[in-house]
């Protein structure tokens, strides 16, 4: 048994939509099989108006125990720190968030916005958005560096834009069945069980990466090759299980020819979307990827790349993903 309250701040609902795609367990399974009681969710709750306000006050006053507080979206502080750009149930959402986080046993940030501010916090950050416990890569955010919920954990960050449903449901189940102690967190408070490996781990293009064979361009040009060298793929640089735990159970960005955009890292969106940075690998001297994935100097990298290309087997230069 665990009670869950889920609220939206400066949110696009993408994480909720992702969550509703869940299988094994589905969202209905969470309720019927795992005793998860969803006290309220903005897209699924029956209550509105006064009933919601009364519920929130009962939680804050601890008449109703809150086991898991899930927050999706940024904490909106604008204008000028007032939070009036995001009102909810009669007051700035940020005030609800502060009080609820302090009565909940566990606080879970679902998706990048709640984790670190994400796209809304890209300069000029017109809404003065921030994450629950990080602002971009910097610890702190809305609740502060030292925040620990009553259950003894900092905000559990499930990043991604959106977060994969499975990352959310498995963490909820772990908390609901008393396995909070098994959730080990990394430096960004991400559960290591999901965010130790790279987005590239399990990528169907990884053989092309090893032989340094690049995808030529989008569309039919992605029938072979690795997306890292030209098309800006961040697979080797991004901690995420997208190619271990497939999206919608069937695919991943890279498998469909879509470069990884590094959305589980706290600097996302990368380079603040500056001109020339989208779907284009940033390079030194026009050839060497600027963000090397190897622990070596540029010359060693070049030698390795040239050697790999010369040694590449014939198939590596042919279409792999054919009709």
């Amino acid at each position, binding site marked *: 048994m665990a009670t869950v309250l889920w609220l*939206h701040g400066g949110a696009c609902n993408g994480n909720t939509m992702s969550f509703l795609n869940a299988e094994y367990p589905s969202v209905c399974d969470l309720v019927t099989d795992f005793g998860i009681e969803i006290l309220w969710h903005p897209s699924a709750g029956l209550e509105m108006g006064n009933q919601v306000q009364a519920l929130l006050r009962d939680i804050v006053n601890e008449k109703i125990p809150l086991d898991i507080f899930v927050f999706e979206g940024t904490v909106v502080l604008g204008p000028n720190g*007032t939070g009036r750009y995001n*009102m909810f149930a009669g007051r700035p959402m940020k005030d609800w968030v502060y009080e609820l986080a302090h009565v909940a046993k566990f606080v879970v940030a679902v998706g990048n916005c709640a984790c670190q501010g994400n796209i809304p916090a890209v300069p000029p950050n017109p809404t003065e958005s921030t994450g629950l416990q990080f602002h971009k890569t910097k610890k702190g955010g809305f609740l502060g560096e030292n925040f620990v919920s009553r259950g003894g954990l900092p905000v559990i960050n499930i990043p991604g834009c959106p977060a994969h449903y499975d990352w959310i449901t498995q963490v909820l189940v772990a908390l609901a069945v008393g396995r909070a102690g098994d959730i080990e967190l990394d430096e960004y408070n991400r559960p290591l069980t999901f965010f130790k490996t790279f987005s590239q781990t399990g990528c169907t293009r990884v053989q092309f990466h090893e032989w340094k064979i690049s995808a030529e361009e989008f*569309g039919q040009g992605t*029938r072979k090759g690795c997306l890292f060298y030209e098309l800006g793929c961040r697979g080797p640089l991004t901690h995420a299980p997208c190619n271990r735990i497939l999206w919608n159970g069937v695919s991943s960005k890279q498998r469909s*020819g879509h470069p990884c955009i590094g959305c589980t890292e706290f600097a996302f969106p990368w380079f603040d979307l500056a001109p020339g940075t989208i*779907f284009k690998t940033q390079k030194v001297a026009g050839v060497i990827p600027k963000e090397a994935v190897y622990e070596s100097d540029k010359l060693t990298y070049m030698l390795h790349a040239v050697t790999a290309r010369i040694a590449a087997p014939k198939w590596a230069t042919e279409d792999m993903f054919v009709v």
Partner: protein
Amino acid sequence: MATKQHLVIDPLARLEGDVRADVFVEDGHVVDVQVEAVMFRGFEIILRGKDPLAGLIVTPRVCGICGGSHLYKACQAIDTAWRTEVPPNAWHIRNIAQACETLQSVPRWYYAIFAIDFVNKNYAKSKLYDEVVKRWAPFVGTSYKIGLEISALPVKIYAMFGGQWPHSSFMVPGGVMCAPQLDHITRAYALLERYRTEWLEKVWLGCSVDRWLENKTWDDVLKWLDESESHRNSDCGLFIRFCLENGLDKYGAGVNAFLACGTYIDPEFYPVSTIEGRNQALQAPSGVVYNGKYYVFDQMNVREDITHSYFEGSSLLHPWEGETVPLDPDVAKKQGKYSWAKSPRYLIDGKPVPLEAGPLARQVVAGYEEAKSACNASGCIEHAIDPLFRNIVNKIGPSVMVRVLARMHEAVKYYKWVKAWLAKVNFDDDRFYKKPKELPEGKGYGGTEAARGALQDWIVIENGKIKNYQIVTPTAWNIGPKDSKGQMGPIEKAIVGAPIKNPEDPIEVAHVARSFDSCLVCTVHVYDKKRGKEIARYKLGTFK
């Protein structure tokens, strides 16, 4: 003197975003309303000065619910600015993906967002209540569970082509990123058929999709209802019976004027991406219906009125000239402003009018034969021109019931269309992308029909970066506040007149608002009521 009550509903939930509604009730009916979008998101400001492709990453994240639709039109906006030549296969894949997003949205919206209100205790006396609870109660209802779980299938098709749903950016100027394989196509058929057999026919219709599509008039629908137990007892049958029993066919009309910017490009009519050529190439036709007359849609007639929006000024600008300068709501309220939504208007003979966007709008527009001559491609796909909802609106008028039926009807059509487009993906002409020339200057326009209505972007590119970006969402069309002339938008207008049986739980307001499937997260830019204090006899629910 009648008793006037002022109800504050905050939050008016399940609108995919937060809304506060101030409802004024007299003699058991709503006589005035103000709907406030209570959140500012600032995406258009963020986009300025960024990479021209930034819209592909940013706009789907305006709204996780119709991110695929955001991507479709964001991409088209750059396509038109760069005059790309998108290969036919790429258009088919874009169309399949976006329609699959809508196929997902129909059951998910119906069960998770809309129908659970019928479980409300206000309806406990209904003869159909036990059945409604059994099927539609959240999380545990028999159909709820099937509907929610089936909604994940169409987006598996999306994910095969786009890598994931939500939030893919796989449509790029010049085509798509993917180069599908045979098994993607074959599996897509399998997923569609599962959607049809397990939910659309078995649970929703209680008949074949082809039998449903024989309905051309409201009388046909009533005849269909009585034709068999299987029809009456289907979720669609139960929905219609419940609506007729509880008067949901009698309120929620709105402005009775409609906008569809159309979508689903037929590549045969669109060799080069241009704004001028777009209408001709639409398979789901565009058009404006005002005072019962059809007008050819022209994006140049779109304006945004910000008189009552929390933005600086009171301009009425075309989106290319659009401005987004936010005000502190506390300051703005003193100027009589009351919402974060802008109020889009359409010029008819130079006069800005409010229009409803959404499935009902699309289906009414599709009822006009003129739409076929305005959009040549619509003649090429079955049921693009479809008389059913024009007839229903003429016969019984728009209402909560009719609006919901229009949306459900689209699941049937889109199921057929996705199959037709899958058949068109041609591996002999194996092109899914043609690299465009990235022009440093240009103006673009992209439009599509998200599940909830016309969704459009206007982009101005200068010196290789975004100079201006404006997004006009269906929710803004529907939920925007009054304009400079005091004309209400569709949702405010539709709420006025609604009966309120129980002022402690005014579920009828929620039915109307939710029938539009508004999505406030998408109202990139909805809140007032100055008069409340003077008029209100009672103030229900103001916890400070």
